[in-house]
């Protein structure tokens, strides 16, 4: 797993592919705008405050960039950037997970037999 990414190559970045890079960018924005987003959402999604305040809340939410949304983040495989079949606990695609498990690299993971 340490040699999954070759760091000596002359490349612009060391992400597996561009989608992985964009996903990373979205995660960063998510962390950055999280407080503003929560407050704007709270102002918008309530029936207690007057309508004008709710309107202001909706505007504030619209101003925040779309990539700061949680729904845009995809839990990809950390090595292959596979969007589907990702084992959440290890953040790895099922294929990578299987290969590592077979080589005894995953702690406590054993071939199932019952």
């Amino acid at each position: 797993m340490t040699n999954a990414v070759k760091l000596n190559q002359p490349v612009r970045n060391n992400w597996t592919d561009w989608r992985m890079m964009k996903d990373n960018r979205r995660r960063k924005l998510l962390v950055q705008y999280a407080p503003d987003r929560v407050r704007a959402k709270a102002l918008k999604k309530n029936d207690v405050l007057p309508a004008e305040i709710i309107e202001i809340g909706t505007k504030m939410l619209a101003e925040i960039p779309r990539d700061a949304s949680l729904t845009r983040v995809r839990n990809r495989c950390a090595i292959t950037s596979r969007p589907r079949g990702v084992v959440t606990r290890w953040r790895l695609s099922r294929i990578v997970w299987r290969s590592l498990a077979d080589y005894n690299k995953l702690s406590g993971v054993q071939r199932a037999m019952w």
Partner: protein
Amino acid sequence: MFPTSMATSIQNTKMLLRRAFSVKRNEILARNLCFTRTLNANEDQDKSKKVVEEKKNKAELKEAKQKEAKAKLNMLLESMSKTTQKAYPSESKLSLATPKIRAKPAKPVKQPVFNTKIEPEMLQAVEDVSNMLSKENEALKNSLIAKLEDVADESERARLEPFKPNKQKTEDLNSLLNTLKVDGKKPKNKSPAPKLAPVKIEDMYGAQPSGIFSKAHFIEESSAVSGLATWDMLYEKELELAVTHPPANGFHQMIQWTKQGKVWQFPIDNEQGLDEEAQVGFHEHVFLEPHLKPWCPRRGPVRHFMELVVVGLSKNPYLTVEQKKEHINWFRDFFEAKRSILIDTGAIPDITTKSSPSLST
């Protein structure tokens, strides 16, 4: 045959050259004529006579060569004898009759004539010089031009022929250099360095400033930002690598992580590393109403909203106390900014009616 007008110097040189060439040409022609005559003669007569003549020629050639060799030998012997004679004094003490010094006739130079082109600029210069010294002196001009030609010819000859060291000249040079040899003795008494009088400093800091640098403009060393950001970064990385020692193997890596505290301690404690947070009591997380007290109105939609916010925060285990406080303060600032709207809508009771500066009533 040729136009013999002696007006310009260029024409003179051309004339001379043409004459030389014409002479040579005539000689060649003559030689050819003789040869053809002899050839014709031989053809008429018998072959035996021709053979005899050839033999005679060969003999003559041999004799000529022998004569030349003898002449060379004589020359060498003469040179040798000259060196031996040097032991004796050349000058005699007797006052003998000395011959008159007569100008020797110019010998015909048997050296090849070169077609040395004297540059028109040079000729012009020669002309100017002659004009300066004596105007319209044809003889002077001619002599100067002749000298120029000689120099040119000599240079050409020297250029073409390989350099042969002249023995006489080298011997003279060597004798000269021997006289100029430096003595082995070195001068012992060197003139001592001029001794300056010791400087008497009376008062170091009381003297008047000399004002030497009053008008000096010291150029500040330009500490311009270098545009090589990548290079600087890489240099710093290299420095770090030189100082630190990256782990050689997995064991070294584990040791390093343990020292840094990155490794899980057993039995596993989920709150490992969160020591500061552990010191904060749960009451600070849960009881957030005191933060609302100073500013929030007791009744109304604003209070209702903030109560909901506080309930949500109290149930949030992921935020720190500081973060929760900041959250509440943000809402306070927001409602303060939108105060006019709140008053218009009737969410907050009008302040003008009541004499209280803050939102709370």
